[in-house]
């Protein structure tokens, strides 16, 4: 194989997690036109962050997570920093539980994600209330979390082969 081409493919493979995060952000901003769907659009980036934090934490540095979160905030019109904060907290939690979750059955991983997603919904709702200094009804946050949890198996059917193809960056 041409060394230049091989190098480009190698770089591309290290960029897979970041690419899926960008895709997740883009999917969050799409107007789906489904009745009542807008405020409860699944938190796609949360799925990607949790998955990569468990399976390839070395490939998603905190700076990249912060950037992705801020980008989603800027695209969707939310308070800049809010999604970044949630994603960083989820990343920290998932990495700390990596040893427990890795190697367990898929159901355990899914249950772990469900807990994290519901926790993120509660924290997100509290943040929204504090930010707006108003008591916002929590239902949209909870329904969004449930939809995100329901979507996890479908998302991992794409992320798992992506993780196999991807590989960690070579040490400098």
């Amino acid at each position, binding site marked *: 194989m041409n060394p230049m081409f091989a190098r480009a493919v190698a770089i591309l493979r290290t960029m897979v997690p970041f690419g899926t995060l960008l895709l997740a952000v883009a999917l969050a901003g799409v107007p789906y036109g489904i*009745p009542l769907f*807008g405020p409860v659009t699944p938190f796609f980036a949360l799925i990607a962050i949790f998955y990569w934090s468990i399976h390839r934490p070395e490939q998603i540095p905190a700076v990249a997570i*912060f950037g992705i979160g*801020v980008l989603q905030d800027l695209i969707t019109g939310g308070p*800049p920093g*809010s999604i*970044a904060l949630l994603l960083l907290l989820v990343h920290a939690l998932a990495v700390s539980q990596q040893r427990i979750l890795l190697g367990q059955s898929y159901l355990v991983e899914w249950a772990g994600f469900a807990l994290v997603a519901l926790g993120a919904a509660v924290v997100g709702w509290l943040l929204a209330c504090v930010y707006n200094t108003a008591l916002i009804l929590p239902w949209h946050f909870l329904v969004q979390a449930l939809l995100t949890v329901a979507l996890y198996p479908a998302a991992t059917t794409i992320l798992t082969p992506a993780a196999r193809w991807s590989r960690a960056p070579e040490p400098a």
Partner: protein
Amino acid sequence: MRPIGGRIGRLAVPLRVLAQRFALLLLVGASIALMITAKGEHWAVERVRTAVMDVVAPVLDVIARPAQALNNATEQVSQLAFVYRENERLREENDRLRAWQSTARRLETENAAFRALLRARPEPGVTYVSGRVIGDSGGPWVRTLALNAGESDGVRKGSAVVTGDGLVGRVVESGDRSSRILLLTDLNSRVPVVVESSRYRAILEGDNTDTLKLSFVIPADEIRVGDRIVTSGSGGLFPAGLPIGDVTAIKDGTALVTPLVRFDRLEYVRVLRFDFPGMEADNPRGGR
């Protein structure tokens, strides 16, 4: 004796972990600081947001098209099932509208004559810029939409955004090629309105749900379910008389208004521009 490289290697791992934790803490702090800065409506945040949206808008535009095409297709299929009933309804509506048209023509002539008699100051002319919805708020935080038209098309911050059904919201950020609309249903939306029949003034507030609340002051017996709510024109931001919604319930003295616009089905919207008589429009291209 152990090699020095091995000792350094053993030290480097905890140091790297420590550095990663420190970076994480720093970024969590940066996120909070960013939220506080944004809360203060700092001009830099708005500038960055509009610049990013200008760059991302073409990408969102492309991604949004398949979703909207799919929606249109499903809408058309579902409408096929009701085409006969819909046709009957439209016929009846057409008859009713023709009657209203002749009334409107007569009133228009009368109105012009009375205005001339009174030497009334003419109402500001309204032109518009059309744009396609390319972005949603994608979650429960805010109720906004992104539009593929910006300042270069004549969109201005603060302008009213409408569809054929009624008021959608207002432009809160305007980049060069894209803009962001704050929907009526957003928690931060406040619109001066008037009850069409009684002419009582009020403020219409969003609360991140699908209904709107009338605040201020209308005596309870002066407002009824079914009353139409329209813009009052106070403040000069919106033209007067834009339809917004109907009162659908009155709970604990608060009137709940259901908007006429279906926010989840929006594809194209119009951004209104005031062009006062004698003033030259900023954008010679006018409507788009």
